[in-house]
Structure formats: C-alpha cells, structure tokens
C-alpha cells in the first residue's frame, strides 16, 4: 500500500531512458488541436468554394477526391476524440479528481485509435 510518509529517493537510475509521458501527451494534445483547427478552416473554405457563387470558379477537381481520403478521415477522427478526451481529463484533474497520468494517456490514445481504425477498416472493406 502506498503511503505519503517521507520516503527514500526512488530508484531513479533509468529516468533519462524511454518516453517522457508528459512530452508525448502535450505534443499529441497540441498537434491534435492544430489538426482540428486546420480541418475547420479547410472545411469552411471548401463549403465557401462549393456554395458561394462568387467563389465557385475555384471549385477545383481535387476537392472531391481530397475529401474521400481515408487517412485524412482517420487522422481527423483520432484528433477529435483525443483532443476532447484529453481536454476533459485535464478539466477533471483541475477539479480535484486524481488520475494516473500514464494510464490516462494510454487509455485515451487507445480510445482515440478506435474510430481511426474503424474508419480505415471501412475503407479497406472490413
């Protein structure tokens, strides 16, 4: 059982090896946020090009195929789910709930991979 008693220093002998979980979670949160922002911007632009008459001349042929890219959908779904869940995790933590940082990160990554894999599987015909 873990106690809060004054403890001897833990075995820190391999701290510089392996992943620094905080960096992984911070970068994933940041990158997923950027992906979402880019998607919103691109989506707004595409809708404008498709439906706003003065911009319709820009309606390039590549817009349609671009929207059918499975990897793009997968990355977007992963980003949406990860950013939402990790943001909620931060919020809940700030309200006093103790959450293990390793478990929460890998749990959220796992959950976020589900829609990504589902999307890729759908395109692959599974």
């Amino acid at each position, binding site marked *: 059982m873990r106690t*809060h008693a004054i403890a001897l220093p833990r075995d*820190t002998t391999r701290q510089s090896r392996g992943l620094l*979980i*905080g960096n992984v979670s911070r970068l994933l949160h940041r990158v997923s946020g950027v992906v979402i922002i880019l998607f919103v911007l691109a989506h707004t632009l595409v809708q404008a090009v498709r439906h706003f008459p003065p911009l319709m001349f820009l309606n390039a042929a590549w817009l349609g195929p671009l929207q059918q890219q499975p990897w793009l959908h997968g990355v977007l779904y992963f980003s949406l789910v990860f950013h939402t869940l990790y943001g909620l995790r931060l919020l809940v933590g700030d309200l006093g709930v103790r959450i293990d*940082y390793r478990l929460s990160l890998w749990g959220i990554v796992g959950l976020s991979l589900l829609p990504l894999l589902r999307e890729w599987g759908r395109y692959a015909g599974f």
Partner: protein
Amino acid sequence: MNDEMTVEAEIRRYSPGEDAGPRYERYVVTGAGNMRVLDVIRRIYATSAGDLAFQFACRIGRCGTCAVKVNGVPVLACQERCVPRMRIEPLTPFPVIRDLVIDRTEIEERYARLALTPAPPAAGAAQPLPMDPGLAERIGHLDSCLACMICVSACPAVAERPFDGPAFMLKLGYMHKHPANDQDRVDSAMESGLLECFGCDACTQLCPADLSPAQEIRELRRDAVLGARSRS
C-alpha cells in the same frame, strides 16, 4: 551485473566571461557496469579535466545538488545509471556559473519571496501544533522536496510561459495545507503562474523524491475554482 562498461560522455563546457560560447568536450570513461553519471563526471575531473566545474554533496540522492541534464533529460547525476553515449549539460533554464554549475541565486530569491515558513506560534504558546496524523504524513511527504530543480528544468510550461515552475507550486501547495499557514497561498500561486501549467506530469515522472508537483498544482487550481472547502 557489475561488468565493465565504456561510456562516451560529451560535457558542455562554458565559462561566461572567459569563453566565447559553449562547447562540448568528449571523454571516454571505463568503469563498473552500474556506475552512475556522477561517477563518470568525477572520473573525468580526476583524470582528464581538472578544471571541470560540477557540484555534488550527498551522493545518495538526498541533496539535489548534482542535478544535470543527461541526453536532454534532467536527472540526479548520483542516481542516474550511465548509458554508452551521454551528453551531459547543466540544468536549463538557469544561468550557468561555469560548466555544469548553475546559479541558484534567483531560485533562492523566489523561495524567499514566497515566504515558505509556517507562521510562528503566538507568544507563550509552547504547545505543539495539533495536526491530523494523515495531514502530518502528507505534509511530511511534501516537505521531502529536494529543491533540485529537475521538475523546473523538465517543465515545458516554464520554457514557454510566465510560470515559476512545479517546485515552487509544490512548496506553495505544502504551505496551503499547513495548519500554521497564515497567507493566501492560492493567490501567491496565481501570481506565480498557476494557470500556465499544461498538466502534462513531466515533473511527476522525473521527481527524484517521488513527489507529484502536478497533483499539487491541480489541488491549488481546484481550490482556486471551488474554494479551500473543497479539500478532502
């Protein structure tokens, strides 16, 4: 288990005022397979670079004096096991006095500014302060912070934002819980950048005293939002 190993260490050498800029000097050290980074530094000092500046005291991970960055990760040199290739640097973002020795003046000034001493008992009150045993245990644990600044060096928010760092937040959290505290520590924490923390727990992962500054930050934030009564 104790086989010999050969370590290739690159040490950042810099003496402000004397050198034009920092440089990395390469040393090869052979020693026991379980040697620590501090053993390598001391061997280099003894055999190859007598002018190398570094500091250590206890050699058992209790003083926090020997903290350095190894391959970009802040660690206690006396505790960290060697890897075959190591780049050893002083802790960032602190000013360097020389080589691996950082200037702790600003750190000490910040600690002093935060007034991290419990208020003295009222005159004539010689009785010990009554304290819940659970709280005493928790406070005792928080008091085992080494002030080694590993957490501050690892903190991405310190590098990007006006944030004093996890070590100071931990001390403020400690005082916030202390029954003899007579100041608004949440307010002090807010002034020190409480809201700038990313909540990434890098400080928790690297703390050599097995503390969680990130948890203290979360508890201070919770009290900032919900008030101190929300404490369990």
